[in-house]
């Protein structure tokens, strides 16, 4: 069943269109930067953008920083929100269940396919970011955000860690959207529900009055991947972000399973 879901994923034009759009945004940003040479001042705008003019090899991290706040979670919410609700509204869910595909098995297969999509998207964004960055800005001496120099191996390793961390951060969104997808038959509704939660979280993160709940907000530690490029690596927020996402994923997947396993398929 997992293979079937993966085949559905790669044969769906939407998958590739979404990934294409995800890579288009950092590419456009890179072209503007390369032609005008006007970099945002350090500390402003998306992470790393001020540094990439000097060194294109940091552009994968910058590209992740560009798609992370909005574009990537939207894509993940849409794909995950569609996972069960899309099958329900197309009518194929009833045929899968009476095929029979066990309901738990179906959810697991959907989850694996979403994880593959997220990893694929993040890797492609980082990969294209590297190509675009080195082509447009050239690769100079690498330095960490703390100013010390990094070897190429170190930089590659840290970029891979960042890719993994960003991918994992998206699983919280995916779990929420997937849970909502088992609740409603509307894929759009499920995606919007997950996005509403994200927007709320992102607003509250910036609100000092909400400081008491800040450590528990799903988007709180998303940008902690920047810490992976400090010297030495600042693990504290990355670790907390990882743990927090794991809790969200476990909670909403359990809810999705409990709901779907006992639900009447009436679509």
């Amino acid at each position, binding site marked *: *069943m997992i*293979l*079937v879901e993966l*085949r*559905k994923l790669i*044969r*769906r*034009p939407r998958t590739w269109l979404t990934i294409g759009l995800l890579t288009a945004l950092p590419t456009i940003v890179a072209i503007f930067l390369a032609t005008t040479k006007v970099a945002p001042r350090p500390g402003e705008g998306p992470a790393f953008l001020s540094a990439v003019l000097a060194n294109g090899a940091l552009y994968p991290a910058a590209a992740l920083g560009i798609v992370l706040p909005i574009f990537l979670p939207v894509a993940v919410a849409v794909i995950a929100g569609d996972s069960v609700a899309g099958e329900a509204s*197309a*009518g*194929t869910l*009833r*045929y*899968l*269940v*009476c*095929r*029979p*595909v*066990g309901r738990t098995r179906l959810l697991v297969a959907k989850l694996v396919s979403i994880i593959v999509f997220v990893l694929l998207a993040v890797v492609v964004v980082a990969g294209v970011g590297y190509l675009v960055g080195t082509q447009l800005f050239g690769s100079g001496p690498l330095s960490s955000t703390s100013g010390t120099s990094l070897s190429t191996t170190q930089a590659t390793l840290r970029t891979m860690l960042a890719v993994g961390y960003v991918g994992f951060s998206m699983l919280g969104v995916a779990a929420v959207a997937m849970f909502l997808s088992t609740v409603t038959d509307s894929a759009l509704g499920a995606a919007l529900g997950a996005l509403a939660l994200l927007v709320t979280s992102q607003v509250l993160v910036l609100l000092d009055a909400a400081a008491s709940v800040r450590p528990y907000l799903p988007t709180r530690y998303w940008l902690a991947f920047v810490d992976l490029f400090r010297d030495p690596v600042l693990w504290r927020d990355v670790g907390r972000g990882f743990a927090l996402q794991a809790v969200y994923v476990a909670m909403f997947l359990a809810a999705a399973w409990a709901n779907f396993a*006992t639900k*009447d*398929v*009436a679509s």
Partner: protein
Amino acid sequence: MTAPDVTLAIATTGLSKRFGAVVAVDAVDLAVPTGARYGFLGPNGSGKTTTLRMLLGLVFASAGSIEVLGQPMPRQSRSVLAQVGALVEGPAAYGHLCGRANLELMDAAGPGAPRRTRRARIAAALERVGLDAVGRRPVKAYSLGMRQRLGLAAALLRAPRLLILDEPTNGLDPQGIHEVRELLLELNYGGTTIFLSSHLLAEVEALCTTVGVVDRGRLVVQDELAALRRLTGNVVVGTPDAERALALLDGRLAHREADRIWVQADDPARLNAELVAAGVRVADLRAERRSLEDVVLAVTTHGSDRIAGGTRIAGSTR
């Protein structure tokens, strides 16, 4: 557990489903004999589809038990449903893929479908439903009838022992309806039990051996078609000499429409002899049977899609 009752392909006892305060299915005891062609009839909204969904493990029953192919459902759904082909509330497929790719995905998704025979089984199923020459066209470009055929092909993929079909001829033209009927008969002769729901009485009358009628969630009739279509005790006589026949049959006449008369008589042969002996010319003569429509109208109320308060226009039951 005792040996499963293999003479019944589907057996339910007290099967009920409530949606909140609404009782959609109320204590239904289905008995579908193995090898039968069972027609499941009822007005719209009478609980047909909900019952069918419970048989397939899509909807969970509120009360009662279900046995399909001798095994309890939904507990044994993995082994039971692998031997069941189903078409529920219209076909469904991934629109951006062609029919063959859809069947491949569906086949690969569940148990009981060996990969090495997949290609051959798909080709055979497509040929059976008349879609073998459809090519690589995506399903979203299919007509309603083609989608229906594809849905049937999906149900036939694994040579099921039991076919559960919801309105299988929906969207088909008369030629297509005839083809599907022939196909179902052929499968049934090969040993497949067929359970089909429909509101097309003519379709059920032409195809089925056993009939169940559900009305407002309750199973109101369940019997063999031959038993339901019993004689009414009337003989219909067509004659150009209707006036003379009337005089002769004084008191035994039930009804008349122009040169067609309904006579209360147990023995059509003796009636015929009597008429001919009296010089009444007989153009045609047959013992009248109750039609399935009479049976169904007598036991059902109107469908839930009718909102008006009045009663149904009285049927012309003679």
